């Protein structure tokens, strides 16, 4: 079982080592100058912008994230179905009816999201 997994873990180890080495290298090799305040400021194409306190971020991004989760689960449910669909067809249309009901309900969800203009990016 773990024969399949161990190489992946070894690969992660290799990547981490590589990344750490590179950053370490730049840290050692790189010039060490005293950071000037201007340099410290977040880069704004050169203009030294004032930094007002609370940045009002548009919150609409989270809605896509939520919808992503819900539709991702739909996809996850489809995978096992896809594997078995071909073989269970031999035993009648039952497997088909199941997925039709499932997909109808969820496409209605998508349709609702569409009509409710939840994904509008004004």
């Amino acid at each position: 079982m773990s024969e399949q997994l161990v190489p992946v873990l070894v690969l992660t180890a290799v990547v981490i080592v590589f990344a750490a080495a590179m950053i370490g290298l730049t840290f050692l090799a790189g010039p060490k100058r005293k950071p000037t305040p201007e340099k410290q400021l977040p880069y704004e194409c050169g203009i030294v912008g004032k930094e007002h306190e609370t940045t009002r971020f548009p919150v609409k991004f989270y809605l896509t994230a939520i919808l992503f989760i819900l539709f991702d689960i739909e996809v996850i449910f489809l995978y096992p179905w896809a594997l078995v669909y071909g073989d269970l067809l031999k035993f009648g249309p039952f497997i088909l009816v199941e997925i039709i009901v499932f997909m109808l309900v969820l496409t209605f969800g998508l349709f609702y999201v569409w009509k409710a203009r939840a994904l509008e990016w004004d």
Partner: protein
Amino acid sequence: MGTTWLEIIINTVKIAAIFVIVVSTVPLLVWVERRGPAFMQNRLGPNRVGPLGLLQLAADAIKFIFKEEFIPTKAEKILYFMAPGLTLLPAALTFAAIPLSTPINILGYTFKLQIADLNIGLIYIFAVASLGVYGILAAGWSSGNKYAMLGALRASSQMISYEIAMGLSVVGVLMMYQTFSLNQMITEQFGYFSFLWQGSAVELKFLPNWGVFFQPLAFILFLTATFAETNRLPFDLPEGEAELVAGFHTEYGGFKFNMFFMGEYGHMITSAALITTLFFGGYALPFISPEQVREFWIQNGHTLLGFTGLSMPDIASVLTTITHLVVFLAKTGFWLFFFIWVRWTLPRFRYDQLMDLGWKTLLPWSLVNLALTTALMYFARIVK
């Protein structure tokens, strides 16, 4: 990884080797990225350093190492350093599952040219790909720059939206191959284009048995989804130079910046490899199955590698592996070139068009594709 220490070492070396190869192809791609479009736009591109500018890559790499280690004041120290790693890691891990070529069996060992032959190959790739979002978000947020933050949010929501479309489009393919393991998918795509129609076998001599001919719509959807997933040009809004400077990695310099690029290009290589495996027969030649290739090399393989003194079957298996590796590299190279080619032809989407494309066209079309395949398999009883 095998039980004996020897096997473990060999495997680790293999893994490291494959990783290094992938990492080294990134500068190559960058080079192609600069030379190719230059060629298209009738200009030269980097040609100073080394022949045709090839050494330019090495120069850049070394330059990155000597950059000053610089951290903006308002940045989150730990996360700022971890962000590049977080983007590179998923990109590298996804490549683990892709079968590069047929396994070699010399001196009694079978040696897989694939980092990890997982029986859940495909969704393993999707799983690890979905972890990529963390790198971007971490980078955007930890650098303390609100434009970077905005870029990160945009990039991640774009990636998220297209992940569903990609997932759904793949379902069609899965229904056909009925397995997750990529190796098995490739074995399914050997020989001629054949399937069962109403129970009777149908074979078309002039077409290879590739997935693209079974699932053309899935291929198109998958392609566009991968473009969006890797933030390649039509969809590279987050780092749109015009408005958001460099998007989520504005504050990064030095090798950390390079790592972001490595992550992006790594992801691109994996996507190209995935397209070839899923739709274009992976490392297999169009009409010839690896068995036939072995037979061919058994007859005249001796001429090439006779000097090594290995037994005939070993030589044959080495040669078939090499041929298949070459085939695989060719196909993937083509698709990589396609990526770069598209970058310099299509204009950038506006953000809401991009999101609409994701949710309102790709997703519905993949549902249609799903319905189509289900219906065909049910009514026509097409079974691969």
